[in-house]
């Protein structure tokens, strides 16, 4: 069943860190969201305790990040989740593409042995930014997928609808975000709540296509920064999706 959550990097940026996962989960549950993308754990005991806490609060997560790549994979598998982020060392845009794909394939082979899918988060300024790069990567790394960021591909001038049409089964999770290019010469970007930037419509259209195509995973709102009140902006993002007729959105009942 389609679930909506928060990829909470932007909340960490706003607050300066994640200080108390229980408070965060309670806050976002009140908005009607079902969880966060990552359970962040420092040890296997910490992972277990936090996973139980999510469950107790009626919330979920889709992957786990530990202090190393191997522990992240092991704990994600142990907790019964489906994918991990691909983190093959440098993801800098200057990294040689062939080297990048060799490393991704090594990563993906290990993930597959553990029963996991893995996906790269396409992002402006990283090795996987443009549509062409995303498609080349998906062809070169058949065991790897995408933590597919609709806003970021929009910022890079790509067509997210086309990616969904061609690579639906490679999508591990979906990120929605909006932004405004405030200075086209320098490429300066400011992130916004959904519907408050230049990419609201394409987020909504792509999400509609995902739902129509039978996508049945997590959709995370991922504001990378907030301008005023994070929870209010997250609420505005959800309202924007609902105003667009996405009544299929299954929101967690408020406690």
């Amino acid at each position, binding site marked *: 069943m389609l679930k909506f959550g928060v990829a909470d990097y932007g909340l960490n940026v706003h607050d300066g860190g994640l200080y108390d996962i229980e408070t965060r989960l309670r806050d976002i549950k009140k908005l009607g969201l079902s969880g966060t993308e990552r359970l962040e754990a420092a*040890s*296997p*005991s910490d*992972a*277990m*305790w*936090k*996973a*139980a806490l999510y*469950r*107790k609060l*009626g919330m979920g997560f889709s992957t786990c990040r530990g202090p190393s790549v191997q522990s992240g994979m*092991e*704990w994600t*598998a*142990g*907790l*019964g989740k489906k994918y991990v982020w691909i983190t093959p060392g440098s993801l800098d845009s200057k990294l040689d593409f062939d080297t990048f794909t060799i490393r991704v394939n090594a990563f993906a082979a290990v993930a597959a*042995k*553990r*029963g*996991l899918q893995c996906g790269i988060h396409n992002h402006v300024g990283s090795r996987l930014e443009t549509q062409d790069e995303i498609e080349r990567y998906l062809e070169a790394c058949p065991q790897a997928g995408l933590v597919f960021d609709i806003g970021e591909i929009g910022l890079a001038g790509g067509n997210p609808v086309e990616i969904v049409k061609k690579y639906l089964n490679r999508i591990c999770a979906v990120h929605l975000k909006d932004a405004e290019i405030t200075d086209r010469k320098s490429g300066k970007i400011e992130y916004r709540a959904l519907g408050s930037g230049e990419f609201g419509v394409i987020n909504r259209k792509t999400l509609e296509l995902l739902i129509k195509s039978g996508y049945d995973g997590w959709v995370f709102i991922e504001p990378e920064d907030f301008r005023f009140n994070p929870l209010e902006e997250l609420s505005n993002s959800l309202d924007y999706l609902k105003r667009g007729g996405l009544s299929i959105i299954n929101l967690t009942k408020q406690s």
Partner: protein
Amino acid sequence: MKFGVADYGMNVWYGGLYDIEERLLDLKKLGFNGTERLEAVSPADALYKAALYRKLGMDFSTCRGPSVQVTTEWTAALDKKYVWLTPGQNDRDIDFKVFCRRCNAMIKSCARWGVTASIHNHMGQRVENQKELEDFLKACPDAGIVFDTGHLSMAGGDPVEIVKKYHQRISVMHLKDVFLTGGTRPDGIKEYRFCELGAGNNGFSNTKVIEMLLKVGWDGWIHIEHDVHLRDPLKDLAVSLKFVKNVIGK
């Protein structure tokens, strides 16, 4: 549906569980998907064993730790749906109302973690026969069932009727057959042992139970549970799995 082994009988035969990886590899070769319980002594042990199950392409349906509370917490963390009800004393001497009161307390605690606490009907225990099981389900409306066909059959009940009436309460199935060994115990019960599916002789067959599960659309774990083996357990388990899959048509 998934097919697993409630491996108590294997532990009896071998004297214990010495290496879960070896056991899972053995069961996988037979075509099983896992064991009922992941047994863990710490949260780290639970998590690494869960990862091992996954790596081997195997699974489990609940977790048991060294206390009721951690069992519930770890089962919740590992995203499983039920735990066994273990509210202290569970023999024939415990007052039924006291037993149900304790069960309801445990059920309520488990529900806070999103987990269903489920009763295992069992010969010689508080919930043994059909009337007791039905009375229990009324007295504990949020309890699930770790439903054991062999035990209910030996207690004179009708497992098919239980599946028909209470399939929405069944957390997991335990299938076993009953072999009457001749003679009668001092308490008047016929001497018996449990055996591989299809080898029973008490007039009960799991075929109709499986057919009823299919009819009502039940879709969970079916665990084979031989409490007693008289030969290599893997041989008995292979026979039982073949029996189930033949009925299901897989």
